């Protein structure tokens, strides 16, 4: 029997590009909150890679002297302050062919 975690990964493999978590939850047939827990497990297992905050651990980027003079820092950047959490599937391109449909 295919587990719901495997179904999630299989469904994700059929996607080429970004997918909203609510759409993926619909496709897999689980609630969005359940999907969130499943994502955490897949992240812990190294199957999904979370997009870190662009400045995570890189305080040098916005430390002042090295920064653009009109930069307000990543946590206040108008274009990034409310960016969605995102997770990328770690694909072994050699072994897992990606279908070309969305």
């Amino acid at each position, binding site marked *: 029997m295919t587990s719901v975690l495997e179904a999630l990964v299989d469904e994700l493999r059929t996607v*080429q590009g970004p997918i909203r978590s609510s759409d993926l939850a619909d496709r897999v047939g*689980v609630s969005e909150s359940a999907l969130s827990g499943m994502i955490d497990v897949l992240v812990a297992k190294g199957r999904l890679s979370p997009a870190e905050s*662009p400045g995570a651990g890189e305080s040098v980027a916005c430390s002042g002297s090295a920064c653009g003079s009109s930069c307000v820092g990543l946590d206040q950047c108008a274009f990034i302050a409310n960016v969605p959490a995102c997770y990328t599937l770690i694909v072994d391109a050699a072994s897992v062919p990606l279908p070309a449909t969305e």
Partner: protein
Amino acid sequence: MSRLVVDYGSDVETAIALLVGEIEETPDVSERYASRWLATALLDEDPGLVEPLTALDGGDRLVATRDRLAEELRGALGEQADTAIAAARFQTANTIARAAIVGQTGKSRDRTDRIDAVLTNRYLGIPIFLALMWAVFKITTDIAGAFLDWIDSAVSGPIAHFVESFVSLIGLDGTWVESLLIDGVIAGVGAVLVFVPILLALYLALAFLEDTGYMARAAFVMDRVMRGVGLQGKAFLPMLVGFGCTVPAVYATRTLEDERDRILTSLLVPFMSCGARLPVYVLISAVFFPQHAGLVVFGMYLLGILVALTIGLVLKRTLLPVTSHAPTIMEMPPYRLPTFRTIWFHTWTRVTAFIGGAGSIIFGTMIVVWFLMAVPVSGDGGFADTDVDDSAFAAMSGAVAPAFDPAGFGTWEAAGSLLTGFVAKEVVVGTMAQVYGIEDAGVEGPSPSIADSAREIGTGFAGAMLGALRATPGIIGIDLTDADAEDEPSSLMASIRVSFEESSGGHSAAAALAFLVFVLLYTPCMAAVAAIRQETSTRWMWLSIVGQTAIAWAFAVVFFQGAKVLGL
């Protein structure tokens, strides 16, 4: 009440049974823990369990058995035991949820989903994003533009008079100190600070979109565009940051695992029009395209994206072939009604950061530019008393200026402004204020009283408010402005127009457009160059500098010559 026992599948259940047997033969452990729970938690690799367990008699043996069974399960299942356990739990929870929750057949859509169906639609998402950005720049230039003259007249009037009176009071009038303060600091830094209302409006509009939750959707839409040039999903983050400032955007490429993605993104990020370029767009648009300033600014942002996509496609097919497109899940925040308090907090933080920046890099550069303009290299003038055309700055800039002849702005003033732009784009406007406005920068007439100055500032503000209110309906196409009443251009704006008119052979608007295109596409600033070197290599850094400058020059020439043909 019946007790639910999750079925983990035959392989895992066999391993659990073996561990349960061993646990029950270990009294120290079985007295403290429920056997099946402990067996499952051990196979699930519960991180907090091993230490207390090994402190008990027989605990080490249990951990060793767990390790052996986990290894066997990995071979049998093709995945780790804890993954299989998590999958079984989710499967059980999902089965229960499906049985227990009724009335949700098919896809249920809430308000956020319904709005997203339109805003992130495969075909509508990008046009809607562009339309919203156009509205943002329309608001920015049309409404906030009314305040430019107010701040300009306050800086060059009462504030300049105050500084002049102070210099006179301490007996330094007529000296280089007065020139430094009036021609250098007030003219340069003041010219940049004039654009604070523009940034205020931009940040207000963006904070509004951000607070509604739309900016997250912009990231989603942008991601699709980025994939078009072969960049992986996460590359949209640095590209979006690039609209704010290139430097952190380049550093943000560290989050990309693939080196080719990192290099490609670092090379493309500088084409995203950063906030520091905005004052240049607004100034030049106010001089040459006053009725279409919003469209011109929007056009610059759009051109930056298009050039980045084109360059990305070229690099993808040549130097940096990209191999994979990993799918990405995005967790969108729900839409919500924005609150004024949050919007104002974000806006104020960003504006004060800009003013702080103006007080450091711009201030320093303006003093250097003033110094170079004060040093004579020809003619008979002395220090701070020379014709600007004889200054070191004019000589230095004049050596570069002929390169811009085919683009219609081959003057030392324009070239000098672009040269200082390598330091930071904010100083381009400050330099223009110095080099074009230097002859008019002196403060004329008697100093007004404090009461007169306050009255002048107050009247100017009221006029600006009225202008902003009149311009507001223009966003939806209702023009309430007095078309016959043309604002008197400032001496700086008049000087820029005359200079571009002369250098372009009468095609000043075409030259202005080419100038803007060059500002958009050439190297953003030295800090960005240093960041690119740090994140890639010296070779890629030079490719970025030379490539961007060459592309900027080529586009500027094509735009000027093309616009000339079109009769601009």
